[in-house]
């Protein structure tokens, strides 16, 4: 395999499926999930996502998530450079929500900062994935650094990530999005509709019932047509995701992906949630 002079790297929160990662020669650094005394890397092999979410409600203490260590980051970058890459564009979960970027920065320092360009995706799950995907396609074509960074920016601006959450319990316990939780009110059962934007998770709606939340999610999705890329996201709710995809019908691109999100994110949001990541076709203009 020929490696282009720029390589694209990301963390496992980007939720790209293994086939795409292989195809586009992307390097993924796993984040960790701590369950009980164990720290398990979300590397696609050590942790079975579906099983994790199935077990989540019964776990006596809520799992926590952890960024890779600076040492992990250094080893990760060194391996890519040793493989022949001249530069690395490394796209990550928002600094506002995670220590990952900081660890990656420390790792980059050890291998020579000039060779690693760090990007705060300001997004989550496939919102990061779209940026990584577009960047990797350009890198494979031998595009210049500026071209790749410009594309990442435009993809970001044309990406929308929305989710509807079945229970507030996990958000509340996670403590990472206190302002979000406060804005939703705590005394009634609410199915929040949230948006990931500019590195933050914000509420945009409150439905009292699941089917109303789903209707709203559908409206929000259809607002984004023409959709070039679409990912239907879920946490332990494949039937919900499948029926949502059916609802979207012909407006969904034929290569729409259905993805169970990473436990790193899912542990904070909880089982039952479904979401969408859309990339509007306008990003190319």
């Amino acid at each position, binding site marked *: 395999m020929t490696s282009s002079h720029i390589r694209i790297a990301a963390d496992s929160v980007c939720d790209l499926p293994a086939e795409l990662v292989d195809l586009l020669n992307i390097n993924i650094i796993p984040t960790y999930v701590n369950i009980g005394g164990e720290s398990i890397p979300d590397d696609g092999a050590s942790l079975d996502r579906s099983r994790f979410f199935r077990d989540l409600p019964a776990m006596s203490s809520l799992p926590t998530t952890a960024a890779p260590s600076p040492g992990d980051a250094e080893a990760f970058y060194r391996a890519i450079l040793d493989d022949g890459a001249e530069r690395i564009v490394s796209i990550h979960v928002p600094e506002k929500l995670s220590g990952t970027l900081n660890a990656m920065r420390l790792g980059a320092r050890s291998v020579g900062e000039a060779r690693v360009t760090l990007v705060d995706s300001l997004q989550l799950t496939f919102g990061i994935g779209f940026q990584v995907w577009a960047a990797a396609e350009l890198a494979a074509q031998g595009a210049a650094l500026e071209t790749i960074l410009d594309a990442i920016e435009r993809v970001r601006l044309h990406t929308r990530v929305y989710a509807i959450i079945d229970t507030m319990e996990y958000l509340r316990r996670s403590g990472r999005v206190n302002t979000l939780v406060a*804005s939703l*009110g705590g005394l*009634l059962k609410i199915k929040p509709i949230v948006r990931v934007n500019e590195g933050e998770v914000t509420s*945009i709606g*409150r439905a*009292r019932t699941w089917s*109303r939340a789903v209707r709203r999610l559908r409206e929000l999705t259809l607002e984004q047509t023409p959709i070039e890329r679409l990912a239907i996201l879920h946490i332990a709710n494949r039937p919900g995701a499948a029926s949502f995809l059916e609802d979207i019908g012909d407006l969904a691109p034929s290569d729409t992906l259905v993805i169970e999100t990473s436990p790193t994110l899912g542990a904070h949001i909880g089982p039952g949630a479904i979401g969408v990541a859309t990339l509007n076709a306008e990003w190319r203009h």
Partner: protein
Amino acid sequence: MAPSDCGGQALKRRFGAGVDNLSRNVDRINQLNVFPVPDGDTGINLYHTVRRAYREIERCDSDDVSVIAGRFAYGALMGARGNSGTILSQLLKGFADGLGEASTISAERLAVACNAAVAQSYTAVSAPTEGTILTVAREAAEDLQRGDRGSESLRKMLERLVATARASLANTPDLLPILREADVVDAGGMGLLCFLEGMQNGTSRTQVTSFQPTASLPAPAVHAESYGYDVQFLMIGADLDIDEARRELEQIGWSVIVASAGDTIKVHIHARNPAIPLDFAIKSGAALDDVVVENMELQVQQRQSEGLALADRGDTEPSGVSVVAVVEGEGLRAVYQSLRCSAIVPGGGGHNPAAEDIVAAINETPSERVIVLPNDSNIALAARQAADLVAGKQASVVATENVLQGIGAMLAFGDALDAEADFDATATKMRAAADDIRSVEITRASRSTSFGGLQINQNDFIALVDGTIRAASPDLDDVAVEALAALQTSGAELATIYYGAGVSARETDQLIRRLTKSIGGLEFEAVYGGQPLYPFLISVE
């Protein structure tokens, strides 16, 4: 002054006697409740309204009737409670306006003022209903203007006014079938008659029971919003139409206050372009005076650059809109607070807050733009009055009919805040969300009656489904089950049961178990409401 004319102090004594007579008849008026639900306490509402009115003139020595009537009306506007109280306050405002600059009341002037009172009161309600206090006032006032009445003495005119009012009141059951069914006359009309009778008879009385002075209204909050210009000016001219001016100015800007005295209209408005309101004033033919234009944005920047802390706006919402809601019950209050309601006025379910309580709550909020949720059709008018009375803020009423609709509106308020929707869009969303809520309110019948084929005994539990009585039984759970069955819950997914003071969580769970068995496809949620009088309030959506 002609020998039979009435001066300011005489009018004050007559008002005092009217208040006194109304106060003595509170229970009688209360007993005329039309609906067997405990929210028709017209007597107590009228009583609070006129007591507050009298407080304004208690220490006033003016012998000028325009001063006495004006102050009395102002007090009534501030103290207005319930629909009848609000209508009475509008009658008094119209009466004062009708007296104009007069220093004494002649027979002729009385007729003019009474008819101005009626005109004002009819404008205060969006759909005037005949067979109510409005009819009693109108028929009595109309009679004063008939034929040669102008030559009668003031004393004779008052006698006639009371006699016509009495006859009109007796006729109310013929105009309003619901009164006939319950075999009562209209309670508000009765209250007005009591007040007028007192005024007619009680000239010798000098004083009604004195009141404790209460704290004055809080000052309007600091204008910390940094948008546009604050524009104030006087419009002077003979033929100015204040209503038209208000309408036009409301299109131009916000926080509009328009007040008139004689040939002068005082305008206060916030606008993005100060030239537009001034241009409107010139084009309307007015001469301008006392023009003050202040750049609110610069004022705020100045304060910031001077390092002065702005007013504490800890819970200011980004879009600058706050909500005031009328809510009873600690659990429900907490629900409202958790949904970002800025100020709560206790009331509802038969205990109606005064317009000035709502004004105070509006002033308490950190925002310049405030939405009021009355949560009761008997409070809607007082809320509208408060929205009109409030100074320096824009207030709008979303006329929710119960606390359940109000909660629906509060959820939409959160969505509107997230979307940084503007004031009107926020109100519209809240209105639509309130309309989506179907409600079951369960309480006890205050008297025996029959309604829509239901035989209701005093103290039975009754269920109002979307405002209409649909079930009655001595058994609380039976009523709840029957009401939800009557609601046609197909398509509905969730019923939230707010249990009131005196009902336990365990009793609520028992009800839910029974409902789950008898009504399929509906999810139930129990929430502590703590409201008095209503063991269960159930919203279905």
